[in-house]
């Protein structure tokens, strides 16, 4: 209930002038905590709508619903009225110049769209006036005309802003301004001020106590001019005889001191904080830049190192290959390839890859050779030789030697295998020939391991051959012996004795004493039988 503690008086006058219709509008309201004055000047020629009244009503409705002195909200009320006017433009564009003053009985805020004005007087003396949104005001701002010229300047009604403007509507909103006891506010439309000089208005305010007196004086001054054409004019005077006393504590010297200190300290703190913030940001940016540069340098170094490593590893690999240290070379080529990949040197990548593969083939081939897989070893050496044709690092003669050795060893094994097969078929001569040939070849290629084995196999073949011959002879002896037996039975003792003797010679050759004794017995028996036969034929003998 601030209103009860203060005294505000308002009076106004609105007239059509020499025109037949008055398009001006004035309204005000004094609520418990806030008051509002609106002065509007309809600029269009619409016969259906009173645009000034329409705009003022919308602002008033919004204000009555939510009274405020907040600049943001008041702007919203203005913008809402502007939208309403735009939408209501049917035949002609509705245009309104409007000024609004709002107070909480201790401070005021004023909003201006167009060239309706607020004059403020303190202690009976002119204090300020609201600035128009017109070309004339722009000329005044740029000092092309003087303050005294603006009221009658031909561009005074050429507005750059008004409620209902099609595009880019931007009203002026003042800061909050403290009222003092005895302040006078005068609101007026262009129809009034365009016929007056500001000094005349200022003089009229001096030493007046009631708003009605001011209104009457001003109208009298206007009409005294007896202009042929007088536009619609509206004048409203507000006398703030006593404003609301804000909390006195805030007005003590202590509070003033605090305020002064705050005014000094807060900006300093803010500057300090902003400085710190800016400094931090600058440092962050610097560090980021530094990190970027370092990263780039690191990358460059890494590339350089990688290149060096690649060269070093490849060279070492080549050297190791020349020395025949293939497993070590393999590792070097792998490192060289990885380094080449890092520096994206595709030629080097490919070269190292090839060398790696060749070295791997040689190592594999050596492995196969050592594990006696001579055929696989031979194939691997062959592949390695073909691949290594373009790489001088590899000793082709050495590779050829290895290849030939593998081939020879393989041949030894193959011939030996043939001998083995012949032996199994009891073709002792063939087997011996194979083993001898394999042995000769093994000796010529220094296949020591195979040499001993082949010698042993050859001896085995001889033994087996002798055994076979003995068996054959024994069989022959037995055959002769059994033939002798058959002849004995046929009483052909001479022939039988002859056959027994032959058998006896075979057994003697084979040194089988039992069989010799047995045959001797048979020979004796046959002889006796033969003798008996002769006696029988020749009994006298």
């Amino acid at each position, binding site marked *: 209930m601030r209103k009860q503690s203060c005294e505000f008086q308002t009076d106004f006058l609105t007239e059509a002038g020499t025109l*037949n219709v008055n398009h001006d509008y004035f309204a005000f309201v004094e609520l418990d905590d806030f008051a509002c004055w609106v002065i509007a000047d309809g600029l269009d020629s619409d016969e259906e709508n009173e645009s000034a009244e329409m705009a003022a009503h919308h602002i008033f409705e919004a204000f009555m619903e939510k009274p405020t002195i907040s600049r943001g909200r008041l702007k919203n009320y203005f913008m809402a009225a502007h939208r309403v006017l735009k939408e209501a433009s*049917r035949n*002609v*564009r509705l245009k309104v110049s409007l000024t609004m003053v709002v107070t909480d009985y201790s401070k005021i805020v004023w909003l201006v769209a167009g060239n309706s004005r607020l004059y403020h007087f303190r202690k009976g003396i002119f204090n300020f006036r609201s600035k128009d949104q017109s070309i004339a005001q722009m000329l005044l701002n740029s000092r092309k005309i003087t303050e005294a010229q603006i009221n009658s300047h031909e561009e005074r009604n050429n507005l750059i802003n008004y409620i209902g403007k*099609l*595009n880019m509507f931007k009203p002026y909103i003042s800061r909050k301004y403290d009222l003092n006891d005895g302040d006078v506010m005068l609101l007026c439309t262009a129809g009034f001020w365009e016929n007056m000089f500001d000094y005349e208005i200022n003089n009229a305010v001096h030493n007046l106590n009631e708003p009605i007196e001011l209104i009457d004086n001003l109208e009298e001054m206007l009409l005294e001019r007896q202009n042929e054409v007088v536009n619609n004019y509206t004048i409203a005077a507000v006398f703030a005889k006593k404003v609301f006393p804000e909390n006195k504590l805030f007005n003590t010297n202590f509070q003033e001191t605090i305020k002064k200190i705050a005014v000094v300290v807060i900006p300093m703190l803010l500057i300090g904080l902003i400085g710190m913030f800016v400094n931090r940001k600058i440092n962050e940016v610097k560090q980021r830049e530094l990190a970027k540069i370092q990263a780039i340098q690191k990358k460059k170094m890494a590339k350089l190192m990688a290149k060096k490593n690649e060269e070093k590893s490849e060279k070492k690999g080549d050297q190791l290959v020349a020395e025949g240290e293939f497993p070590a070379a393999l590792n070097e080529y792998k490192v060289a390839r990885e380094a080449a990949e890092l520096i994206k040197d595709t030629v080097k990548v490919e070269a190292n890859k090839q060398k790696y593969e060749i070295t791997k083939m040689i190592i594999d081939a050596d492995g196969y050779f050592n594990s006696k897989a001579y055929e696989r070893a031979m194939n691997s050496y062959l592949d390695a030789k073909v691949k290594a044709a373009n790489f001088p690092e590899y000793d082709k003669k050495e590779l050829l030697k290895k290849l030939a050795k593998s081939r020879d060893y393989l041949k030894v094994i193959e011939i030996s295998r043939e001998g083995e097969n012949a032996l199994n078929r009891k073709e002792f001569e063939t087997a011996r020939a194979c083993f001898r040939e394999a042995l000769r070849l093994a000796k010529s290629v220094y296949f020591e391991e195979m040499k001993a084995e082949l010698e042993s196999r050859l001896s085995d073949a001889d033994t087996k051959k002798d055994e076979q011959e003995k068996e054959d002879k024994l069989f022959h002896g037995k055959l002769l012996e059994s033939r002798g037996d058959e002849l004995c039975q046929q009483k052909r003792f001479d022939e039988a004795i002859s056959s027994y003797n032959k058998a006896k010679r075979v057994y003697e050759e084979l040194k089988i004493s039992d069989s010799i004794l047995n045959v001797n017995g048979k020979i004796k028996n046959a002889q006796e039988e033969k003798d008996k036969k002769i006696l029988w034929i020749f009994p006298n003998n």
Partner: protein
Amino acid sequence: MLKIFVNSFLKNIIQRPKILIGHAQLLGKRKEQEDSFATFNNEFGVLGVLADGMGGYSNGKMASSTVVNTFVSEFAKTRNPESLEDFFINTANLSYSKVCEKGKGIKTGTTLVSVIIFEKNLYWTSVGDSAILLFSKGELINLNKKHIFQAILEKEYVMGNITKEEMINNPKKKRLTSYLGYDGFRDIDICKKPIHLQHGDKVIVCSDGVYNSLTEIELEAILIKNNSPVKTAEEIMEMIKQKNLSDQDNATIIILEKR
């Protein structure tokens, strides 16, 4: 000599703005087209002239075309662009006498609106109730006042000689109080100061058949599209056609756009 020639050539190039022109016309529900118009371009600038004839049958057309032809031929002859006010007054008077002469005592006449764009400035004159409008930065501004009886009635009302109802309900309030024709040339409106045109500004010259049929908002909506003057003029006529008003008057429009 060469220097003078080059200077004059350069002056022409630098000072003469590019003006795009568009126009359109509609017969409406009338039997005859009584509106006449012309645009003319010479070394001094661009002339646009429009006349809305009256008097029935061929008399209206005769009056309007006489005025338009006179303006074009006089503008073609003029060699002194500095005194365009004199040009407007003299040519209007000459047109008036020609119309009276050709009319041979018959009650005929025509309105006149004429604009000249010279060195980025717009000059205009008007007699009667045809309109000159300026569309600048999205805003439509009426440049000329109409010479109709309503203006006199308003004055009478302010003087207290008649009541508001008498002013509003007067059936003759739209009657012309000044026109070029038999006993009618009483007043001519001429621009007090030339208007400096900005890039994209459009000058619209039209007869009452246009502004009585379309509202300011409808005109604005078409003009703000920023189409070429030719397309804009056609669009305006198309909109009038679509409205199909029962008493549609002859409608003519000229649009001049400064580029």
